[in-house]
Structure formats: structure tokens, C-alpha cells
């Protein structure tokens, strides 16, 4: 988006579909599955056979309420199911049972994005188009797998509060972590248990009126969401700057070509003919039921970040970086629990987590790495106690990632113990050697050109193989140079 950023404000709302991990489907007793042979988890209800009737899954309702409470939504004491009518082979009844004008949850927020509504519905069956195109038009044959038919879904709709593709991705990450904390879904975008659509528009900066929006469908990874939204913002800004108008339409983002293709325009929009589902009674949620579910909610990522900030003294960015990634936060808390210095070391240990992530990759769970949480805590405390320099400790961490083990033993066996002026004359002697080797640099430092100190510090660090503390070396050189004048 480059320079146009400042003239156009993106306005983005997200619609998230979450497959719930209940034992059985939304309206029948069929088992939920992923990756099983096709059409083995079916019954008259989820096949839409004549005469079959839906019965609401109580566990799915409970999960829906948990999500609503976690997002700070109002839970409706009475909500309704509607039929959303459309013909397609993935819809065995010819309608989807969903919630329409009276959803289970209204309002709320997560992070800095407000929630519009949260409702329950059922997933469609899975269509596979055989033939070259992979789309229904032009395929030789299409087959349907009803294992997915009737899987419980929660749809979360945000207000249009997202202002950048990066924020969209970050917010979705936070939502995923929140849902994982609730343990209500596998929240796996590649497997489709978490799906994101985005409503995207732009408006001139400072304008309060909304521009014409387009809807981007089913971007199936966090990266594609960010890319798809960015591509669409660029397209819309290009249109508007060229004097054209944005047309309201539904778009499909193709991640391989990074192109957006139109699925349907406003004129072709479906009339879903919603009406109340007569086969179900209104969904009643008592205050007691709501409160009992609320009392069982686990600590959520936003609350955890606040706790890291308040109780452990982490800065807000670091607190979120950990708390919004459950594996990191869990690992961090385990490391803290085994730390010698206990909570005093909270900030020091936290600062080592990004170092670890850099080495194992951002998608890996540190708990699966060879680095024991206690080892990381010990390394952090050794650095804090100046038993090992920061530079040497980075090498130790690299060793821990590849081989595991105890950091203290590695430090001893590799001879990486910190060299300090307090341990004898070795470091002062090296400082003298450095000055002797480069008197010009020493003179420049003496005359106030602090940039010249670099080669002198470098000399000492090289000679100590990084075991000295850079700060201490700098201090010693300045003292020596100034003392000698």
C-alpha cells in the first residue's frame, strides 16, 4: 500500500467460522471426524432424508455460550434458529439451520475489536469436484462427503474495527488463542476448523462515512488472510484513485496467483428466504446456566497478558507476545516455576523466549524442543548473575536447542564462564593490550569520539571469545583511556 496509506483508511470487518469439537454433530448423534473415509458418519438427519428432524446438541450450545462469555457478549435468554434456504449439493435439506435476527450472543469485544454477534449454525457437507478445473463448473463429476454435514459451527462477526491487513492477522491469532484456551475447537485453518471471511472497504482518511465493501471468502491461512486483504485494499485504492467505483461483490482470493476473482455481485446475491425453523423450539438459556458456564471459564489470553504485565512486570508488548501464543506462555510459566530466583527473574526469562523462538521457528511449540524450561530459566539467571556473558549465552542456547542438556555444564565444558574484572587482572590486561594495539583509536576516544571505541571493545571480545560482558569492557576501556591522560 505504500504512500497511499496516509490518504486512504482501510475499514475491515471479519466473519469467522469455528468448527466446534463436540463429540457429535449439531442436530444428530453422528460422530464428528476429520480425515475418515467419506460418508461413514451419516444418518437420516445429516443426510436430509425425508421425515428426519433436527435435535439441538446441548454441548454445542454450551460451547457457544463459552465463546460469547469469553468475548464479553450478552447471552440472549431466548434465541431462535432459522432456515437459510439455498440449493446446492452440499446442503442436503436445501436449507441450512442457522441463527438470524435473534442470535445466541450480541456485542462484546476482543482486544481492540468490537464483536457484533456470535451465533450457532451447522456446517455443509464437503463437495469434491473431479476433473481439471477443481470447481463445479467444468468438472467431470462432483461427489459429496456428508461426514462434515451438520458439524456444529459458531460464527463470530466483528464490527468493522480492523484497520490494516497486519491487524487482521494479529487479531485472528488472538481469537485463535482465546478459542484454544476455551478448548472448544481445533482452530486449524488448513483443516478448515477455523475459517475467515473479510469485509473490506476503504475511505478517504478522516472521512467517517463507509466506502463500498467487498467480501473476501475463505482465506485458509493467517498469511493468506493478510495477503488477500492487502491485495483487495490495493485493488480498491487503485480503482478509486483511477476515478472508478468499487462494486459490491463477493471475491475469492487465489493464494497461488494472488488474484481476486468475483464469485457473485450484489445483483446475483441470494435471497435466502430466512424464516423461523419450525422443527426446533426457541433456545432458552437461564441465568443459572449462563453463570455456571461463566464460572468454569479458564484464564483467557487477554487476562493472562494483563497478569504478566501487572504481576510479573513485563512490558505490554512482551506480555501480549507471550500470552497471545499459548505454547509460549505455558512454556514461560513453566520456566518461571523452576527458576532459581523465582518471580524476580520474570522479565529476564521473558526476554529469552524470543531468542528461543528465533532458533526453533515461530510455528514450533517450545515444549517440543530439547530446551527444558528449567534450562532456559537457569541460563537467564546465569546471565543476570554475570556468570556468563550475553553473547556466550546465545551460543549456549543454540547448543541447548540442538543437543539439550544443562546450561551450566555446557558453560563449564566449553570454558564459556564470564571473564570479569572482579575475577582478577585478566580483563584489565586485555584492555591494556587493546589500547596498545590501536593507540590511534584510544586517542580518539580520549578526545571524545566514542565511535572509535568499537575496534577496542571488539579486540577484547575476540580475545575472550565473547566471554566478557561488552558493557563492562566498554567501561574499563573508557576508565583506562581517561586515566592515562
Amino acid at each position, binding site marked *: 500500500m505504500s504512500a497511499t496509506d496516509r490518504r486512504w483508511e482501510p475499514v475491515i470487518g471479519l466473519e469467522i467460522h469455528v468448527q466446534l469439537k463436540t463429540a457429535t454433530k449439531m442436530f444428530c448423534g453422528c460422530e464428528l471426524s476429520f480425515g475418515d473415509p467419506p460418508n461413514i458418519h451419516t444418518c437420516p438427519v445429516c443426510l436430509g432424508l*425425508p421425515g428426519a428432524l433436527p*435435535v439441538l446438541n446441548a454441548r454445542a450450545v454450551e460451547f457457544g455460550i463459552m465463546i460469547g462469555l469469553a468475548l464479553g457478549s450478552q447471552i440472549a435468554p431466548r434465541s431462535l434458529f432459522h432456515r437459510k434456504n439455498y440449493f446446492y449439493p452440499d446442503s442436503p435439506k*436445501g436449507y441450512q439451520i442457522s441463527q438470524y435476527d435473534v442470535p445466541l450472543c450480541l456485542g462484546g469485544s476482543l482486544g481492540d475489536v468490537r464483536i457484533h454477534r456470535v451465533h450457532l449454525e451447522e456446517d455443509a457437507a464437503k463437495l469434491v469436484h473431479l476433473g481439471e478445473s477443481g470447481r463445479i463448473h467444468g468438472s467431470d463429476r462432483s461427489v459429496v462427503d456428508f461426514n462434515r454435514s451438520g458439524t456444529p459451527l459458531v460464527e463470530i462477526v466483528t464490527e468493522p474495527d480492523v484497520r490494516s491487513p497486519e491487524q487482521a492477522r494479529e487479531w485472528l491469532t488472538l481469537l485463535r488463542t482465546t478459542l484454544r484456551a476455551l478448548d472448544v475447537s481445533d482452530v486449524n485453518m488448513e483443516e478448515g476448523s477455523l475459517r475467515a471471511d473479510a469485509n473490506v472497504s476503504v475511505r478517504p482518511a478522516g472521512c467517517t462515512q463507509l466506502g463500498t465493501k467487498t467480501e473476501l471468502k475463505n482465506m485458509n491461512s493467517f498469511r493468506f488472510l493478510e495477503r488477500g486483504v492487502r491485495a483487495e485494499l490495493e485493488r480498491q485504492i487503485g480503482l478509486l484513485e483511477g476515478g472508478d467505483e468499487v462494486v459490491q461483490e463477493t471475491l475469492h482470493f487465489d493464494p497461488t496467483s494472488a488474484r481476486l476473482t468475483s464469485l457473485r455481485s450484489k445483483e446475483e446475491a441470494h435471497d435466502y428466504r430466512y424464516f423461523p425453523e419450525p422443527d426446533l*423450539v426457541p433456545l432458552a438459556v437461564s441465568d443459572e446456566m449462563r453463570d455456571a458456564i461463566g464460572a468454569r471459564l479458564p484464564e483467557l489470553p487477554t487476562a493472562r497478558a494483563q497478569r504478566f504485565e501487572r504481576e510479573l512486570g513485563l512490558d505490554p508488548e512482551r506480555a501480549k507476545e507471550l500470552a497471545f501464543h499459548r505454547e509460549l506462555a505455558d512454556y514461560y510459566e513453566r520456566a518461571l516455576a523452576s527458576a532459581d530466583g523465582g518471580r524476580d527473574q520474570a522479565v529476564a526469562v521473558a526476554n529469552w523466549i524470543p531468542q528461543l523462538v528465533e532458533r526453533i521457528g515461530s510455528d514450533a511449540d517450545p515444549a517440543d524442543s530439547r530446551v527444558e524450561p528449567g534450562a532456559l530459566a537457569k541460563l537467564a539467571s546465569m546471565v543476570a548473575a554475570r556468570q556468563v556473558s550475553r553473547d556466550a549465552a546465545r551460543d549456549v542456547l543454540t547448543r541447548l536447542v540442538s543437543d539439550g542438556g544443562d546450561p551450566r555444564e555446557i558453560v563449564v565444558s566449553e570454558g564459556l564462564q564470564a571473564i570479569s574484572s572482579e575475577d582478577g587482572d585478566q580483563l584489565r590486561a586485555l584492555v591494556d593490550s587493546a589500547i596498545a594495539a590501536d593507540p590511534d583509536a584510544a586517542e580518539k576516544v580520549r578526545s571524545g569520539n566514542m565511535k572509535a571505541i568499537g575496534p577496542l571493545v571488539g579486540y577484547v571480545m575476540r580475545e575472550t571469545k565473547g566471554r566478557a560482558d561488552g558493557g563492562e569492557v566498554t567501561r574499563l576501556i573508557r576508565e583506562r583511556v581517561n586515566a592515562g591522560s
Partner: protein
Amino acid sequence: MTDLIELTAADAAARVRAREIEPGELFHAYRERAAANELNAFTWVADGAPEGSPGVDTALGGVPIAVKDLFCTEGVPSQAGSRILEGYRPPYTATVVGKLSAAGAPLLGKTNQDEFAMGSSNENSAFGPVLNPWDRGRVPGGSSGGSAAAVAAGLAPWAIGTDTGGSIRQPASLCGIVGVKPTYGACSRYGMIAFASSLDQAGPLTRNVTDAALLLSQMVGHDPLDSTSLEFPGPIELPRAEDLRGIRLGVPEDLLGGAGIEPGVRSSFEATLALAEGLGAIVEPCRLPHAPHALSAYYLIAPAEASANLARYDGVRYGLRVDGDADLDRMYSHTRAVGFGAEVKRRVMLGTYALSSGYYDAYYGTAQKVRTKIAEDFASAFERFDFVVTPTSPWTAFELGAKTDDPLAMYMNDFCTVPMSLAGIAGISIPSGLSDGLPVGFQLAGPAFSEARLLDAAHALELAIGFDGSVIRR
């Protein structure tokens, strides 16, 4: 030897339990008659009682039952009178049929009906019209016309049907038998091929009120597979009442005035009211001010629900598929064009229109408000009256083809039965006599779950009327 066919079902069950007759003998006698199928009442007849049928010491005593085609029966054709389901054999059995079978009533056969229960004459069946045993040139009523004709002609001891706006009561009336539309939610709808989900109810069609009570007692109850079904409050005993002392009957003149009731039907109705007074009943006019609008509301609500309920017949998974090699839209439209009859198409179009964006409030929304008003009308009527009474149908059985070109005239069949359906309350039709040699029906309607009282009152009236309930053999 006793003529088995002349026994009422309750009598036959009692004799089976007393070891006076063999259930196999009974089954065979009816099977022969049903298979001959002179009235086109059956779409399928069983070869024999299923293996492992419950013993003779059961509530229904092995007396076989005819079941309307739209009840799903495992492995047995269940086509709802439609070409689109021709040859369809479901993998499961409807709850109500399962309950009756467990209570000792084996499946005798499946009965013809108007397609997807849409009709009042049985002329909308893909399998041809059913003939009225009283006059084979006339219709049996509908949509449960096959069940009604089979019971009246002694092709089955009893039968079940479904009633959405009158589909049990009206054919019972036109065939001179008893038909009960239970309270909405009294019987499970699981496995009933749906027409209009908020209105459909299963119920008995029988030769007399006692048979109806016996059959209904085994049909009701909450089903975990139907969220709209309810536990029935208290058992349904066999009716014993012989008088109507203190029973207040309300006659809704504002409804009857618009019904176009034939004089012969009107006089039978008046005569029955006089009989009721003779039994101790208090007969007074009652007000149902919104009931005359019931038919209009019904013909928006029922088609709207049907338009969604019938969307599943798309040629993808079961039933008819036309032009399967064409593209998806053509396969859909050709399958439905060929598979559905004219009346079904008319109602699907009506319902689709009524739910369309921009029309929903004016049509479906308004119809629902009228429905609420009608329920309120009945609620206030039942503060003063035990039952509301009307002629079941404005007329007796009409000639085949007489109303097929005029859908609105056909819809008027249900003018007096639809208000009770919209209110979700209980109704019963009993024969009140003949008009020009054809049976007339008398309807009593009571509050939700008043079936036990309703059957008692109907029983007392039935005794007083003394209608000849013997099998029509001609």
C-alpha cells in the same frame, strides 16, 4: 364363524387376547381385501405380518394397521404420493409406526394420499385417485384419503394418517368414519415426510371413537428425536361417557357463516346439536372473530414451510433424478419439474414468494400474526366452552374432477378445520348422519391436550347418533 371384517379393531384385539381368534387369521383376511385394492387405497400391501411381531397379549392385540404412505417405514416404499419419491424405501421407521408396531399392530400396507399431503380429494396422488367406497364416482377426501377409504370399506381395521389443515378430519367426514387430529406435539413427527412442520400431526382414522382412543393411546408421547413433541399429560383411557351433562358446546357462527355449508350438512349439524342438548349439553353461539381469516393465513404459512421442506427433493441423494448428465441447475429444475405434480408446484411457488425478501412481512409475517390471533380466539372461547363444534367439511363427498380446475374451491374444504390446526389444538370428526346417501361429519375441537375429554364427549354423541358404522361393501 364370526365375520372378522365386521369386528371393530378394539373388539378384534380383545378377541385375540381372549384366544378366540388368531392374529394371523385376522391379518390374512385384511391382506386379501387390501391387496384386491379396488379403491386404489393402497400403494403397497405386506405379504404377511413381519417376523418377530409382538405377541397377542399386547395393547393392540395383533390387529394390523394401514399407514399413510408418508410415514417412513424401513425397507418399504414410502413415497408420500409423489413421483419424485417413486420406489423410495427409507432406511428407518417413523417413531409413531414403530410405537404402534411395538404395541402389537403390524403393518398391513401403505395407503394412497395426496402428493406430500397437499390436497383435499386425493386426486393429487402420483399413483392415481382413491375412490370413495360410498360412491366410487366420488372422492374420499384428502389428503389421508387412502387411509379413510380403506377403513370405511373394511380393507383395514384401522389406519393412521396426518392432518395439517384437515387431512384426517375431512376424509374421515367424507368416508363416514372417525378421525382425530391430536394436539400439535402430542405425537412424534419423526419419520413423517413433512408438508408443513408447524402444523403436521399424526392421528387415527377408525370405525368408531373407541378404536380411535385405543390407537391414539399408543401413539402419543415425547420423542427425543422430535424437539416439538411433548409428554402427554395422563393416559388416554377408553371412552365411557354416555351423556354430555354440563358440557358447554360453542357454535362459531362467524366462522360457519362464511363456509358455504350445504343445506344437507347444515341440517345434519343442527340435528346433532339437538341430540347433544338432549344428552345434557349446553349449546350456545361462540365467537372466533379471526377464524374466517384462517384459510388465508394457512395458505401462506403451510406453503412457506413446504417450500423449504420440499427443497431436499433435488435428485442428488435419493428419489427421482432427471438429466443427471446435464449441468447442476438443469438437473435440479428438470428433476423437480417432472417429479412434482401441479398442486405441489403451486404451493412451492406460493411459499417461495411469501418468504421472499421484501414480501416476508406482508405475507408470512402477517399470516403468523393472524395465527396468534386465532389461537387467542380459541383460548378465550375455551374459557366459556368445553368444546367448539362445527360441521367438519362444508359438504359431502363430491364427484371426481368436480373441483380439480378450481384450487380455491378445493381449499374451501378445509374452511372449518384449518382454524384448529393453526391454533395447534385437538379436533375430532365423527359421522353425524347421511345427506343424500353420503356421510356428513361433525367436528368437536377442544383445548390442547384435552383428547381424553374430547373422546369421551364424542363417544356419548356417537352412541346417541347411532350411525351405522358397518363396513361399506358395494
